[in-house]
């Protein structure tokens, strides 16, 4: 079963310096029908004006991932920093029992475009941590590249998250066909980063999402980039 979440139906916030589309309820946008999917709690597509950003604020008990679509984000937190996150990089932060961080567009001239993802952790009061990984653009071409999961991988750099969930990225060209097996009891969320793709026969555009359950496989084709979440 595939349930589509159209891009245009997402929550939308325009704060001037921030234009944000929320796939699930977040902040002022609240819809009881879209409170998340499985352990995936937040999926925001943020466009931040040059030099602007989120000042220091706190989080608790959440696995927070940031995937850059375009531009660069400067990050500081109560553990480490500063860090700058760019294209083909992923940031993973375990908020655990408490963390304070800020995120700003690192450029004074170009906007940034990123996806922020919150995943419920397996337990409360974990030890906070920060990870940042980079990957070669070729690693996602025509195949799924694992970005984050519950255990460290060898040899690819992988962000370790405190949940039985995995995040993959793929970039398909016309003629590519990327398949992911979904064992019984597992679910998937697809988020289209850019382009137009087909997922199990369903066409999706940039910004669209899809919840997938009770399907043995997820098949992605078309011309675009997709995040695939494999969820308990």
């Amino acid at each position: 079963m595939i349930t589509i979440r159209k891009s245009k139906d997402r929550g939308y916030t325009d704060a001037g310096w921030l234009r944000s589309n929320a796939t699930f309820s977040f902040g002022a946008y609240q819809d009881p029908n879209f409170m998340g999917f499985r352990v995936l709690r937040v999926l925001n597509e943020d466009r931040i004006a040059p030099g602007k950003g989120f000042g220091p604020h706190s989080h608790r008990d959440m696995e927070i991932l940031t995937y850059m679509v375009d531009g660069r984000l400067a990050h500081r937190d109560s553990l480490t920093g500063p860090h700058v996150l760019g294209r083909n990089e992923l940031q993973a932060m375990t908020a655990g029992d408490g963390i304070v961080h800020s995120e700003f567009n690192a450029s004074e001239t170009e906007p940034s475009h990123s996806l922020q993802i919150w995943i419920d952790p397996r337990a409360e009061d974990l030890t906070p941590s920060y990870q940042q990984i980079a990957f070669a653009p070729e690693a996602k071409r025509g195949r799924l590249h694992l970005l984050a999961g519950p255990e460290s991988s060898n040899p690819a750099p992988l962000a370790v998250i405190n949940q039985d969930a995995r995040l993959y990225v793929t970039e398909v060209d016309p003629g590519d066909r990327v398949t992911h097996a979904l064992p019984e009891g597992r679910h998937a969320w697809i988020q289209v980063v850019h382009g137009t793709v087909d997922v199990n026969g369903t066409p999706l555009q940039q910004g669209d999402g899809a919840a997938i359950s009770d399907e043995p496989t997820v098949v992605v084709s078309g011309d675009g980039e997709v995040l695939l979440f494999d969820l308990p």
Partner: protein
Amino acid sequence: MAQPGVVVTFSSRCGTTEKFAHAAAVGVVNARALPRLRRVADDGPVPSECGDTLRRMQKEYVQPTEKDIAGAPALIIVPTAGMTPSSTQWQSFIALLDRLAAAGALAGKVGAVIDAGDSQTVASFSSALAARGLELITANGGDAREHGRAVGAAIMRSV
């Protein structure tokens, strides 16, 4: 239920005291309360080596407002070592507390002063908070995070 907020107000030009403020804020989060970080205005010359840090903080933080303080059940003050409530950076904030105290808006609030390296500074700001009716919370010699946790725990007990 909304999380009770703790306004963490600090002075910093080179980032050292900012770290104490962050640690206190993390303690507040540990206690499941919600910190709001605010930075008082700058005054005086900036050490040349601090220019980038100061510009960053000027971008990242806003100053505390009456609405911030009036709406929070707790305040944490993180003054730079060597400062007093009469220091230029803190005068506006103390005046803000005076206005709120006169209006009865500080009644029932708790407060704490974080030691960023000078016990005299802590003593002078603690006196200033107590004189304006705040109940002081201490963490028995604990660090900034412990203090933040103690303040957070105190307000969480009251909700």
